[in-house]
């Protein structure tokens, strides 16, 4: 019976198993039209952000072929310091030179939006990743150890949840220079120590009472081994789902803070709208006239936020069997 022993290396088998579960997951996922829509939007934005470096070059080569100023450094399509001197008054309506028009400072809106896209992704995913890493580890250890550790982190979660997060971030913005990365860190920690711990702990508690934990313990596995190899992999689908929902929250919070002018971020979708608002183009009838100042950026925020939400809900129906169709 020696031949019956599987000769394949272990990693190959793992990979196969993984591929198979991925395929069944994909089959389930494909049925949810809205989740597929969300994934499509996310991929669109990813591509949209990645092709950004091409855009200023192409536009400059089309419209500024013979550079009238004669210097190489002139960057009319720069998202932060760009300016188009050929147009008499800014903001100018969408045209071939500027597909989405220019803002009051003469910067190209499309360029600003494309430039911000990867930054929104970085912010959202960093914040969500921090949240999930903290939440998963703390939730799993709270469920596994119980006692003092559990009490401490649960009371900590209670206090963190007491703070209205937007109000707290506003206060923090007064003495912390909220750059993109720091903002992501703070948002991530706020939700990581807060509500997500409760949810993941509840899930980890149901794993803890399963027989295989007992079996692992009786074979002499260490606590860390059980937490990281047995409990965490089992709550990982749920934490992944919460990661998707947290991306939405992080992007929304950043946009709101930028809109109120409290974050120190050079360019983001929120900053574009804040620019329009603070220079008075969003008051009264001018909202309709200068639609290109707020509509594209606003649509981008809403679309990306909702795309992650759709994706999260689609995954929820896969992870949570109670929501599946019979």
């Amino acid at each position, binding site marked *: 019976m020696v031949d019956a022993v599987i000769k394949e290396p272990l990693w190959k088998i793992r990979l196969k198993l993984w591929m198979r579960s991925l395929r069944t997951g994909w089959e389930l996922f494909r049925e949810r*039209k*809205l989740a597929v829509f969300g994934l499509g939007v996310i991929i669109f934005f990813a591509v949209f952000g990645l092709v950004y470096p091409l855009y200023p070059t192409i536009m400059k080569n089309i419209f500024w072929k013979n550079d009238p100023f004669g210097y190489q450094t002139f960057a009319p399509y720069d998202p932060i310091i760009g300016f188009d001197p050929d147009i008499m008054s800014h903001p100018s309506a969408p045209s071939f030179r500027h597909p989405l028009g220019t803002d009051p400072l003469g910067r190209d809106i499309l360029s600003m939006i494309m430039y911000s896209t990867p930054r929104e992704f970085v912010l959202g995913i960093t914040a969500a990743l921090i949240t999930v890493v903290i939440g998963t580890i703390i939730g799993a250890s709270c469920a596994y150890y119980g006692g003092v550790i559990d009490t401490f982190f649960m*009371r900590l979660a*209670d*206090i963190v*949840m*007491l*703070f*209205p*997060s*937007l*109000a707290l971030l*506003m*206060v923090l913005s*007064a*003495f912390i220079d909220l750059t993109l990365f720091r903002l992501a860190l703070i948002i991530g920690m706020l939700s990581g120590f807060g509500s997500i711990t409760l949810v993941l702990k509840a899930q980890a508690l149901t794993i803890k009472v399963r027989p295989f934990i007992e079996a692992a313990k009786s074979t002499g596995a260490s606590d860390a081994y059980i937490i990281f190899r047995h409990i965490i992999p089992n709550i990982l689908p749920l934490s992944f789902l919460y990661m998707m929902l947290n991306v*939405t929250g992080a992007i*929304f919070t950043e*946009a*709101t803070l930028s*809109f*109120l002018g409290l974050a120190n971020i050079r360019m983001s979708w929120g900053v574009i*709208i804040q620019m329009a*608002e603070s220079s008075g183009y*969003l008051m*009264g*009838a001018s*909202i*309709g006239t200068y639609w290109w100042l*707020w509509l594209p950026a*606003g649509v981008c*925020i*809403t679309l990306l*936020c*909702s795309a992650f*939400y*759709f994706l999260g*809900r689609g995954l929820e129906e896969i992870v949570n069997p*109670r*929501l599946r*169709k*019979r």
Partner: protein
Amino acid sequence: MLKFLGKRVFQIVILLFIYVTIVFWLMEALPGSFLDKYLMNPKITPEIRENLKRQFGLDKPVFTRYLYYMKNFLVLDLGVSFSYFPKKVSSIIFERLPRTVFLFATSTLISYAFGYNLGKRSAWRRGKVVDQVTTFTGIIFWTIFLPLLAIFNIWLFGVILGILPLNQFIEPNLWRHVSFSAQDLFLKLLLNAFIFLIVFLIAMIISRGLKTIAAKRILLYTSSIVTIVISVSIWILSGKAIYAWDIIKHMVLPVFTLTLYSFAGSMLVMRDTMLDVIREDYITTAKAKGLPDKIVRDKHAARNALLPLVTNFVISLGFTISGGIITETMFSWPGLGRAYLEALSQQDSPLLIGLLVFTGVFVLFAHLVADILYAFLDPRIRY
């Protein structure tokens, strides 16, 4: 139950104590102080500044001030605001609280009623067009950039259609020659809405005892219509109807925006619980008995799926203040959220601490109520 409540209240007191401490030290960590803005003012000499400092108690060491604050907090004294000088923080909060609460209570109530109905329908017709469309629009509005929605609504209803006022709480021109304050009138309006709610609830309780559906409907409709007619006629007879109408008109747009923004939250909760309930055996039994689809949906399924929605509702009422910052700023609505933003820009630390602490108390209280409600509504839960 009593033992649980006692334990819970004890926990809440300790939590509140820690929370107040953190909030106090957070505000102390803010760079600069309220008095720094007089530094460049030539009329305020260093002596006067020292005097002011002493008056505000800023000359004492931080730790002493913390102990003072805690001592005052224990007797429910939140101190005196800097920017509205002789006014007490608590009086500012209680002046602005009704506005925020009215705004949010109305919009939360509407959005939950809306979400309950939509969620129930979309779960019942799962996977169909109705479900897809409601979920899609719901999530789009749920994740929409709120300031932008506010701006868009102001533009659409205030500018293009011109039927609603743009922002603010009242129309100043209208109120120039009146002898009563808008706040008094607003409180009366609030009382009126409260009475209406009570009458509606009583009618609902009485109607449960009635036999036929027609009788129930007649009782509900007549009681609410009679209350509305009576209150409107009282307003008209007192001659203040036009002013009350002015306040209501200013409320429509913020309430509409908030409702649009938040109805999906309750809708999705309702839908998910409903999907769970639909799989239960008693739903199959009810269908097998030959009951009409609508009755199975409304009476057997929806009522059993109501529990998470109710507790969610209570908890969401607790978060009115943090949610209010954006809405109230966009609509210049003089409520707590706007007071927070103003206090932050003015460095009015007593008001800031007071607002945050008040929010904390509000949230903790809402959680307590939700816990009690849970045990009250679900007989399976016993503490």
